[in-house]
């Protein structure tokens, strides 16, 4: 009898443990192993570091978007803000490396401004965030095109591009260590602390769960909304600075990134319309999507069919999540 009960308890504990592990982590590991079997480079430390470097912008965007999603909203403007950051970076530095730091400061100021506008429109004008951030998406895209005259020229100075491309060599154990991965780790730690370790993070969850109840409990809902949109916008600028180091300056570097970031969060178990989500989930979701793209590239699929696969994965991830929740109740 006791053995049976203990066995039952242990099984219950094991099931509870498995439930606690984010589903996206499991999916990511499976996908990554598949990628590694096709291309063994990925299983070496240098390959893994390069993978993380390429995943960094999306993971950073996802951890910013996470705050908005948990509070119950959407931020559709981040992709256009990435574009504006890259184009603004090339216009402001004007090929002069000495202007890099002041430019980055200016870009963060622009991000802060866009985030405040989004937050203020949602919090004070009570406009649904899909519409509000759709409006800023159009405006910010238009501003980026206006600034560059539609056809951006020039390049970013090397010390601007280093956030995306600089790599520390001869690091013990792992061999190489890209600066982008360091930024990624720092941003994730900051997001983890902000969401799970501060009063502000608790309030974001509370507002997303039930804004009226949060307000009655003394939370200033408008401030929380302003805060989450500012966080999302600043993460978009960070991702933009990083993407500026990856490729050239173009008007569509950021196109579609907002939906990818939301998709990453959703794959990571974040609940749309608020109240539930973790940083681990969002980052694992971003890594999952990046591993999926890598896998599809290795399989030789053309870009359009990658979109198709992404669509299937997205629906399947959410359907499985919904099914698990129904079963858990």
């Amino acid at each position, binding site marked *: 009898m006791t053995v049976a009960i203990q066995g039952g308890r242990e099984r219950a504990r094991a099931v509870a443990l498995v439930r606690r592990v984010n589903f996206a982590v499991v999916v990511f590991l499976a996908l990554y192993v598949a990628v590694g079997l096709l291309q063994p480079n990925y299983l070496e430390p240098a390959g893994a570091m390069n993978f993380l470097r390429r995943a960094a912008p999306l993971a950073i965007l996802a951890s910013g978007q996470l705050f908005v999603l948990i509070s*119950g909203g959407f931020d559709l403007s981040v992709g256009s803000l990435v574009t504006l950051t890259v184009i603004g970076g090339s216009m402001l530095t004007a090929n002069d490396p000495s202007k890099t730091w002041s430019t980055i400061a200016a870009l963060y100021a622009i991000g802060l401004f866009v985030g405040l506008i989004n937050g203020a429109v949602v919090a004070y004008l009570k406009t649904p965030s899909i519409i509000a951030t759709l409006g800023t998406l159009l405006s910010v895209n238009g501003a980026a095109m206006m600034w560059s005259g539609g056809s951006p020229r020039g390049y970013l100075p090397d010390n601007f591009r280093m956030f995306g491309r600089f790599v520390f060599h001869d690091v013990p154990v792992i061999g190489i260590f890209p600066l982008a991965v360091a930024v990624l780790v720092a941003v994730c730690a900051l997001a983890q602390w902000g969401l799970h370790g501060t009063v502000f993070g608790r309030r974001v969850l509370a507002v997303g769960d039930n804004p009226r109840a949060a307000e009655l409990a003394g939370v200033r809902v408008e401030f929380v*909304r302003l805060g989450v949109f500012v966080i999302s916008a600043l993460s978009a600028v960070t991702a933009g600075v990083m993407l500026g180091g990856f490729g050239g300056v173009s008007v569509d570097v950021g196109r579609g990134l907002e939906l990818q970031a939301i998709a990453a969060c959703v794959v990571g178990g974040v609940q749309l319309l608020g109240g539930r989500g973790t940083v681990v989930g969002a980052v694992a979701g971003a890594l999952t999507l990046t591993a999926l793209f890598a896998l599809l590239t290795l399989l030789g699929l053309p870009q359009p069919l990658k979109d198709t696969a992404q*669509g299937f994965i997205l629906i399947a991830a959410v359907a499985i999540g919904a099914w698990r929740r129904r079963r858990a109740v």
Partner: protein
Amino acid sequence: MSDQQAIAPAPAWRRYSAAPPLLLVGSILLYVGVALWTGQTRMLETDGVIGLLQRMVGLGIVALGQTFAIIAGSIDLSVANLISVAAVLASFIMQGRADMMLAAVLIVLAVSALVGVVNGAIISRLQVSPFIATLGVGLILQGLLSASFTDFAGSVPKEFQLVAYSTFGVVPYSVAALFALAALASFVLWATRFGAHLYAVGGNAEGARLAGIRTDLVTIGAHVVCSLSAGLTGLYLASRLRSGAPWVGRDGVYDLESIAVVVIGGTLLAGGRGGVWGTLAGVLLFATLDAAFNMLGVSAYPKLVLRGAIVILAVAVYTFRTRGHVA
């Protein structure tokens, strides 16, 4: 949102949204004002006004369908991709031959209806949020389409171009069709059981289910209507452009713009309240803005910036008095 519910029933006039008449008057004032100010008075004659109405057709048809999805508490982000699919499919099947017109139209409408059923089923049966479900279906459609076609595919015959270019007297077929469809949609929403069920499900899905409504079928129905309207817009674009290309829907930003005009027209994004005349008034506002920017000679990029700001302001005008919280 719940704190708005009054205990006494609202007076009858409160049940009608103020959005349609306000938008109509605002658009007319804007159009006439800009035309007079820039001295382009020929824009106020029949041809100018017809041109303005013709600008409404593409976005207008798909927005009517989007209104159904949003009233039912859903949303459809796949319409832009479906429009591309419909336009390419139509011109690819026709290949310039008049005898294939009927077959092409029927196939396009059947494919559209199927996409609507898939959208609705993923949302209601698999319990995937509409945002993700339709985004995913849109990605799947666009991927399959772009993998199969990279450029304009086939062409439509002269006879099919009449859809976009022919007129009854002064009124183009397409404008007449838009208003006929709007009247039909309005009738369905106001006078049929399906319409009543749409409002019920959008207002309170659980309540509707407990009242015996098959909410899953209502959601699927709303998405079939929405997808069919996207298919019709695709056919119209194929007729106007004389051929379909895999980017016609995305370039028109029909997904986000159709949602924007529905909300500007006074339909609640959360569902349960709204109507098609408001949507049409929202489409008129967008067409008027385009026309006004052209008359004023605003160039393409500042136009984008202004358009974004106007989307926000147009919605904010009547959301800012909302009590309670909006996310």
